[in-house]
């Protein structure tokens, strides 16, 4: 087995969640790395869409921003931002939305707005961007986030975008028909919603990770599925492709 970092395991596990026929709305950073890894390995025909309006884009290096020229040059077409949000996202044409966040709770609600009170924030985060509507308009949501007590919290400081709200059928009661977060991929484990309570529970652990380790890095009492699988370790090919695109990206961003 090759040597790899927990972060690489996270990106690879996230990439594996995507299928060749998926139409995916991609957030910048970790989601973008995972989506392009999927495209360069098992899902060559996946449709990647970025909120800058680039439809079916195939970047050779990972974009630093959501609207790098690379995305437009390799896209099937590029539409305006109002069209992107109205026809494509709100119109229900996106199957998977891929998000990250600063804070997450056990129902996979996300905060990317503030730490502390809104009017007097301890940390002012960038804000929602596309997330509030991505979270409700895409068929389902995958979330990728490295685990730690600062980010995996018992109570969010701010609800920027909803997951399963307060659990059970609370999401549907708001009139939302889409599935919401079906997968939370971390550097330690895979969480999926409990079918009844909708709490995110651990269904697979990455190789060598212990239950204590997961609990130590989570601000709520973690529940584990009756059967917890072990994530297959990264293959040589997955690691090679991921490292190559990251190296190409680092070179491109340093040179520009």
């Amino acid at each position, binding site marked *: 087995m090759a040597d790899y970092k927990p972060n690489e395991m996270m990106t690879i596990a996230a990439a594996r969640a995507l299928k060749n026929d998926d139409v995916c709305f991609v957030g910048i950073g970790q989601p973008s790395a995972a989506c392009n890894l999927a495209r360069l390995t098992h899902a060559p025909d996946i449709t990647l869409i970025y909120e800058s309006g680039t439809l079916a884009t195939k970047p050779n290096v990972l974009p630093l921003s959501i609207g790098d*020229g690379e995305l437009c040059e390799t896209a099937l077409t590029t539409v305006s*931002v109002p069209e992107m949000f109205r026809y494509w996202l709100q119109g229900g044409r996106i199957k998977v939305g891929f998000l990250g966040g600063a804070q997450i709770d056990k129902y996979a609600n996300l905060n990317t707005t503030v730490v502390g009170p809104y009017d007097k924030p301890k*940390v002012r985060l960038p*804000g*929602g961007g596309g997330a*509030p*509507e991505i979270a*409700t308009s895409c068929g389902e949501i995958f979330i990728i986030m490295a685990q730690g007590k600062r980010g995996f919290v018992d109570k969010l400081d701010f609800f*920027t975008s*909803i997951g399963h709200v307060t659990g059970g059928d609370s999401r549907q009661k708001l009139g939302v028909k889409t599935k919401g977060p079906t997968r939370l991929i971390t550097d330690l484990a895979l969480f999926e919603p409990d079918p009844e309570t909708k709490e995110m529970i651990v269904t697979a652990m990455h190789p060598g990770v212990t239950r204590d380790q997961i609990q130590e890095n989570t601000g709520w009492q973690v529940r584990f599925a009756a059967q917890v699988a072990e994530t297959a370790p990264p293959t040589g090919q997955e690691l090679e492709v991921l490292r190559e695109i990251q190296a190409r990206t680092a070179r491109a961003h340093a040179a520009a």
Partner: protein
Amino acid sequence: MAQITTLSAAVKAAVKDGDVVALEGFTHLIPHAAGHEIIRQGRKHLTLIRMTPDLIYDQMIGMGCVDKLIFSWGGNPGVGSLHRFREAIEQGWPNKIEIEEHSHAAMANAYEAGAAGLPLAVFRGYIGTDLPKVNPKIKSIVCPFTGEKLAAIPSHRPDVAVIHAQRADRKGNVMIEGVLGVQKEAVLASKRQVVTVEEIVDELPERSLNAVVLPHWTVSHVVEVPGGAFPSYAQGYYPRNNSFYKQWDDIARERDTFHKWMKDNVLDKGPEAFAQYARKRAK
């Protein structure tokens, strides 16, 4: 009717103290040179609208031009925080700024509604989020046909839209290619428009029958400023300078390094300083 003029004259004529101004460009074609001119002319008490405040609003906020910000995502993409934006909100430096915070979908809809001459934007959004609790402009409306409850916010009707584009012809017809963002909507929603371009040409080049062209009678001022989007980019001319976006993190982190950079690169310079970044890529 478009007036082809200098940047200093365009900003002087179009942007007044206290105006509502939208400098737009979604990652691409961000009008940095025009933003610098607004700073140099010492405009104050502006309400700035922009989906992604980016470096240019970090600079305008840090230089004290801004009273209020209407936005949806305030970060340095892929890098981290906008330090001047954060310090204004967290510490009130150099002055307290009021914020009116939205989502991208809301902002895009508000520009489109403004361009369409409507008083409000209606869309399916903000469901379950805390944003309506902190932004009283986010309300809802019930569809008279289906009964569905939808989000409603006021349309954007800026006093001035400021954008950068690749080309204009000598009449002032403006052509935009690549990532389009919300610039067409921002221009059509506003009372006055300042458009900087990479080059003014005799005739717009051969183009798709559906190319995005803003007719000269929809823009008030057109100015040739080669390189005027740097460190953002102009598709077909120069790439986004991702390396500068990373450097900005250090420059803007402290007040004194920020001020020194602004003095050396903005206050003591003019729009011609941007020309060094302009290079047309061979097709």
